[in-house]
């Protein structure tokens, strides 16, 4: 198996792009990444996307995007793992290059969610859960995560406002990200007084629905110097799964797939949590941010919120997370999110993160989660 590196990155701003279609968003990111890499025609395209079928009546999406990006004819396939689709597509791209099958691969995560109203989109997102035994009861991802948060708060004696640091950190970091959806810092009071969606989850506990696309170009590390001044090496790529339904979990408060995927990734990269300079984690909900930190070895169980309270998750902290806004403030176009995490981590390792630059960033970890922890995909990048 060959070592794989990222030689080009591209992204669209995250937001409500009513004037830009799914295919145009994807093509923009793909073309930008190819231009950044100085690559004309790659061997293959892998596309991460969750909802194009349900919301856009569009399947065969990778084929459409290949054509729309001027790449008609190349190998093109779509990969789906709910909100982990972006990282899942990257996984396929990495396998294609590492195996020796292809030399130049472009991977794109793209999602369009704002063409219809929130209630419809909420229903579509429930396809990531168990339709027959969760969805039928009127649950949505908000209420599933809310039940998790409620149990966590009770078992560990943690009050709701202990989670405030997560959205506050994400929003503060997004101020300096021109591609972020929400670029205003929020005060603690804003969090505490926010409208309840499904108690105890309020508006600021949850990442926003959005449109966006992000892409990278991959090649074997031994050839990276032909294309990039500062290639980013993929040191680990690991996928693990758990039950889809929250009620089938052995221990609902422990994200076992996150744990398995993170531990495998550390092993592949030959590092541990203390070596990680920044962690682009999956803050779809503040409870998931806390549970991800715990399952990935950054905090003992029940103490994830302590990192937020102590400011350890900030840019100057011990475990900087969501350095360019995370899912909460950069936005969460679900199938694209995993690729935004990769693009942002690459920017940090290349020294291109501007005011949010983590000094001497050398190891970046990204983690993309499908459903309420059903699929967990962890990558470790070295730059």
């Amino acid at each position: 198996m060959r070592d794989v590196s990222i030689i080009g990155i591209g992204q669209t701003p995250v937001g409500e792009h009513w004037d830009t279609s799914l295919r145009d968003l994807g093509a923009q990111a793909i073309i930008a990444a190819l231009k950044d890499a100085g690559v004309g025609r790659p061997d293959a395209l892998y596309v991460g996307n969750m909802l194009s079928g349900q919301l856009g009546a569009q399947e065969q999406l990778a084929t459409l995007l290949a054509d729309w990006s001027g790449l008609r004819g190349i190998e093109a396939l779509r990969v789906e793992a709910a909100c982990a689709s972006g990282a899942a597509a990257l996984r396929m791209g990495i396998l294609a290059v590492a195996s020796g099958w292809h030399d130049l691969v472009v991977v794109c995560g793209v999602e369009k969610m704002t063409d219809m109203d929130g209630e419809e989109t909420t229903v579509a997102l429930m396809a990531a859960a168990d339709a027959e035994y969760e969805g039928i009861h009127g649950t949505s991802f908000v209420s599933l995560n809310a039940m998790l948060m409620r149990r966590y708060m009770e078992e560990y004696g943690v009050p709701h406002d202990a989670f405030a640091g997560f959205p506050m950190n994400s929003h503060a970091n997004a101020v300096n990200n021109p591609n972020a959806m929400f670029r205003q810092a929020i005060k603690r009071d804003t969090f505490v007084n926010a409208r309840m969606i499904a108690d105890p989850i309020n508006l600021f506990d949850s990442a926003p629905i959005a449109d966006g696309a992000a892409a990278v170009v991959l090649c074997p590390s031994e050839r990276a110097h032909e294309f990039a001044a500062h290639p980013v090496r993929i040191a680990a790529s690991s996928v693990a799964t758990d039950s889809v339904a929250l009620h089938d979990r052995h221990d609902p408060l422990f994200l076992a797939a996150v744990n398995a995927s993170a531990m495998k990734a550390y092993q592949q990269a030959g590092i541990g949590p203390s070596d990680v300079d920044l962690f682009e984690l999956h803050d779809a909900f503040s409870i998931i941010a806390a549970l991800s930190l715990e399952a990935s070895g950054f905090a003992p169980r029940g103490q994830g919120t302590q990192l937020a309270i102590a400011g350890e998750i900030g840019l100057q902290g011990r475990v900087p997370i969501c350095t360019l806004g995370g899912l909460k403030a950069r936005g969460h176009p679900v199938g694209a999110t995993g690729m935004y995490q990769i693009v942002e981590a690459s920017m940090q390792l290349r020294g291109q993160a501007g005011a949010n630059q983590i000094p001497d960033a050398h190891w970046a970890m990204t983690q993309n989660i499908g459903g309420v922890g059903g699929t967990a995909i962890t990558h470790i990048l070295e730059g």
Partner: protein
Amino acid sequence: MRLAPHWRVRRQRLQLRGEICESCGQHLFPPRDVCPHCHQPADEQFAYSGEGTVYSYSTVYEPPHGYEQYAPYTVALVRLKEGPLVTAQLTDIDPQDVRIGLPVEMVTRVLREEGEDGMIVYGYKFRPILHVESQAV
């Protein structure tokens, strides 16, 4: 009208029927062909009592499409007496009276209606255990 998907699971929805794994003894709900605990084949039927306690809950104020008419409602994870956790709505209780650990029992209720001309889907919900006192005659 989507009849088959609901008809297929009628024994689960209306009777809370699941399985017990012959190899490891774990209780399974819903039934499945392969035991998730020991990975052996599972097919021995088991009828749950319907009794359980609330493991967690959340009151939904912004429902997904199709459930607007029922809002606000409370969804819960219920730990069945026999072991498995199930997702279901709570009924016959005020949201502020719900607590983790509340003893509940299964009842059959309308889960949703598929439009004015569509199917009425019935299934399990859970209510606080109803104690009925009988009087000597």
